[in-house]
């Protein structure tokens, strides 16, 4: 169990900055996810931690040991960092049996034969692949290969376990099982896990901490539920959540001692603290998730009439796309709205769920009652 510290880490490929000035402290024993769209630098970051990629600049610490420092000229090779890495493609050696695959690292480390046998069998037992030891990788299913790949890494008892999109090659059902399995392993092993994925749902369900990256820079670093409720900027808000968050461009106005957010088709009265007066007249972006609306089938006080564009039932909930003047909004409800395309619904925005973003800085503006004034790092 070790913490991992990245200080001003950078990796440039020519003019392309794959990772730029990344500073991050991953707590010991945490399950941290590096999350972002493809090309955001998450895998590069993981590979730098692993020692497979040499950073252009910065420092990497694992536990109390500095494993990389450009300034000091220090570079600890991958094999000496006490890490395990599970590859996206599993990278099982096709010419070796499952046993030989798992035993490879132990043999390199010159562990005694009896000990190798014992540890491989133990690990195989934990991952429930005890019967597969004599088989070759191409005789295994995707899920079994996945387990072998994890066993091969766990048998070395690594301080830190790195996983590079390990579930992306599995079908949806198997993926759900493996998530539960990974969570069980994490609590049993207690080692620090760094997990790379582009799947936000996976990130939210698995991890204790999430680092969201985009184009090589860190966008947000917080416990996993915080990123959903308090996105640090428009990118994070837009990236997390399915369906996508509604982003409404508008301006802050003050009308007769009342603050108002005004957008074409939408005007929302607000209850804000006095020091936000400086923002009056400024353009802002309002972020509203589908569940941030209250829907009504009949007209009601404070509700706006909206034209229904389409209704998408999803089993446990219904997604309804509505139109308010020029504005198209995705809303959701947990009961059947009993309306068809072309019909009318009445909607209200839950005031405590409004997320405002400054047009230039993209930082959240502390506003609304529940999240009032809370700045998110």
């Amino acid at each position, binding site marked *: 169990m070790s913490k991992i510290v990245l200080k001003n880490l950078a990796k440039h490929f020519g003019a392309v900055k794959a990772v730029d000035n990344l500073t991050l402290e991953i707590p010991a024993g945490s399950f941290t996810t590096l999350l972002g769209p493809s090309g955001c630098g998450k895998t590069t970051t993981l590979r730098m931690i*692993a*020692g*497979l990629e*040499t950073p252009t600049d910065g420092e990497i610490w694992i536990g109390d040991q500095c494993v990389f420092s*450009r300034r*000091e*000229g*220090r*570079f600890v*090779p*991958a*094999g*000496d960092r006490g*890490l*395990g*890495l599970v*590859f*996206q*493609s599993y*990278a*099982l*050696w*096709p*010419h070796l049996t499952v046993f030989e695959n798992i035993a*490879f*690292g132990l043999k*390199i*480390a010159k562990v005694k034969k009896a000990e190798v046998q014992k540890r491989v069998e133990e690990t195989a037992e934990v991952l429930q692949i005890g019967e597969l030891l004599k088989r070759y990788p191409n005789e295994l299913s995707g899920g079994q290969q996945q387990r072998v790949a994890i066993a*091969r*890494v766990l048998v*070395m008892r690594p301080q830190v376990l790195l996983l590079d999109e390990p579930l992306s090659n599995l079908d949806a059902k198997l993926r759900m099982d493996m998530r539960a399995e990974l969570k069980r392993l994490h609590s049993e092993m207690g080692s620090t896990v760094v997990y790379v994925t582009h799947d936000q749902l996976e990130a939210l369900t698995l991890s204790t901490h999430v680092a969201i990256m985009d184009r090589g820079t860190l966008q947000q670093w917080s416990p996993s539920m915080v990123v959903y409720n308090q996105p640090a900027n428009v990118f994070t808000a837009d990236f997390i959540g399915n369906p996508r968050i509604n982003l409404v461009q508008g301006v802050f106005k003050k009308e007769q001692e009342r603050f108002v957010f005004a957008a074409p088709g939408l005007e929302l009265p607000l209850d804000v603290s006095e020091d936000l007066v400086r923002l009056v007249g400024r353009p802002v972006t309002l972020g509203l998730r589908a569940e941030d609306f209250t829907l009504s089938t009949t007209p009601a006080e404070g509700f706006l009439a909206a034209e229904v564009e389409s209704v998408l039932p999803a089993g446990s909930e219904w997604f309804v796309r509505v139109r308010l003047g020029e504005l198209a909004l995705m809303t959701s409800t947990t009961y059947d709205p009993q309306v068809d395309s072309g019909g009318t619904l009445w909607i209200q925005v839950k005031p405590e769920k409004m997320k405002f973003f400054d047009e230039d800085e993209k930082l959240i503006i502390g506003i609304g009652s529940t999240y009032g004034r809370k700045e998110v790092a």
Partner: protein
Amino acid sequence: MTTVGRLIGRIRMKSSPERLLAVLFMIVLAYVVFVPLLVMLKETVLVHPMERFQIPGAMPGDFTWHHWKTVLTSPTLVKPLMNSLIIAVSLGLLSVLVGGILAWLVVRTDMPFKKAISNLAMIPYIMPSWTMTLAWITIFKNQRIGGTQGIFQYLTGIEPPNWLAYGMLPIIICLTLHYFPFGFMLIGRALQNIDSQLEESAELLGASRWQNMRKIIFPLVLPTIFSTFLLTFSRGLGTFGAPSFLGGPVRLYVLSTLLHSNLVGQRTGMAYIIALIMIAFGVLVLYMDSKVLASRRSFVTISGKSGYRGVTSLGKLSKPIGIVVLALMALVVIVPVVVLAIDSVMLLPGRYELSNFSLHYWIGPASSTIGLGTNVAGVLRNPQILEAFGNSLKLSLATALICGTAGMLIGYAVVRLRGTRTAYLLNNLSFVPYLIPSIAFGSIFLALFGVPRGPIPGLYGTFTLLVLACSVKYLPYAARSGIGAMMQIGPELEEAGEMAGAGWLQRLRKIVFPLQKGPFFSGLLLPFISAMRELSLVVLLVAPGTQLATTITIRYTERGWTAYANAVMILIVAVVLILEYISRRLLGTDLAKGIGG
């Protein structure tokens, strides 16, 4: 941290084994490809010992523009250059035409016997390039130049005219029959790789088969056709065997034969100017080909997801066409071998009768009374020929091993460094020997290693020189197949080993090599066969002690003892074909994959 430790850390960060490998190979390749160019340039402006009397008042070693002036002002070079270009262009066009039609028939029509035809079509390329040439001479030779009659005259009583027996026409025909498999293979593969969805879309939009062919397939294959033309063109320019055997008797000179006679006559300056001209053509071809390749990459897509491929029905003609094509292929393969075999068992040349049958030139003793009275023992008991044959085998084996290993390592470095400038450079550099005409390449090695240079001793007349020349010349094949093989194993397999603490050598030994065993051994085949049948490249480099099976045939042909030469050819063809067969059976190798990059 100490300064030394810091330095080591710095170096470790920057260097990786694949980078070191790449740099090493680049240095070696640059040395064997570019340094000789400078040496040759220098030689073209020096007076050589044999030229003292042609250049009044000059001493050997003096600086002179004599050679360049001669080339630029006198017509000595114009005719051979034109001849070479005519041959090369015709060869390029014919290879595209014959190979292309054959490829279309095999890949895109319902012609029967496809498998047999495509197997047969590769054989002419595997045989030595001048097998066809020797067979041609045996059939069509006439007596105007002296010597005996050929099979044609024996059978018909008509003496073949000079234009049929020797010169341009037979050279072009023989070379085409040798190189058309090139076109067949390259164009065939391009036709196969066209995503059938492209055709299906056109079809759904109402395009007829013929429109599809003209508007979709042809434009997509056009870059390959152009590339095939360039590659065979460059082969035609560098080839030595056919123009030497068929051009010599009618004083038809091409660049390669002129280069050879100048070097033999110790007119080194002239020889190297010719070599430089040939290299200039090679570089031009490389440049043009890379342009074509760059454009090709942009639009040929390979998906192969759909099993459907547009097959044109030949209707009633399908069977007759199949039979004709099969017969033609069989003819091209069998006739030359049979002709050479018959000629080698005729005691007196020119009389193709049963009574004249004799195995004298195969197993007879040295005699001055039997047959031609050559006083040379039959091929199978002639120590000189057997030694040459042994040399050929040794050379092929050494070349194959060196090429195979180097090719794998280059493949490793290029694939691991993919996307970097180093990989790009190494990849292109390893392809350069392919495009330097063989005989010019031989003269490069003569220039480079003929005399001691720095720490490298003079290697002229040594076996090492032959191995070196062949290894570098065939490196492009090996590098191509090495890159192809390495592409198959993702970097993660090795990185997983790295994570487990395995060092580079351990990873090579435990992961990379076990996975590449198959490709490695099958990759040995092409360099082996190429070295076994090589003539153009080694003809300048052999010395009395290092004669090869191929070069010794020239000596016998020159003396008019074709029976010996033909017998040796049969042996070479046999070795090459048997080897190809065995490795196809045992390793499942497909030569077609390695040719042409």
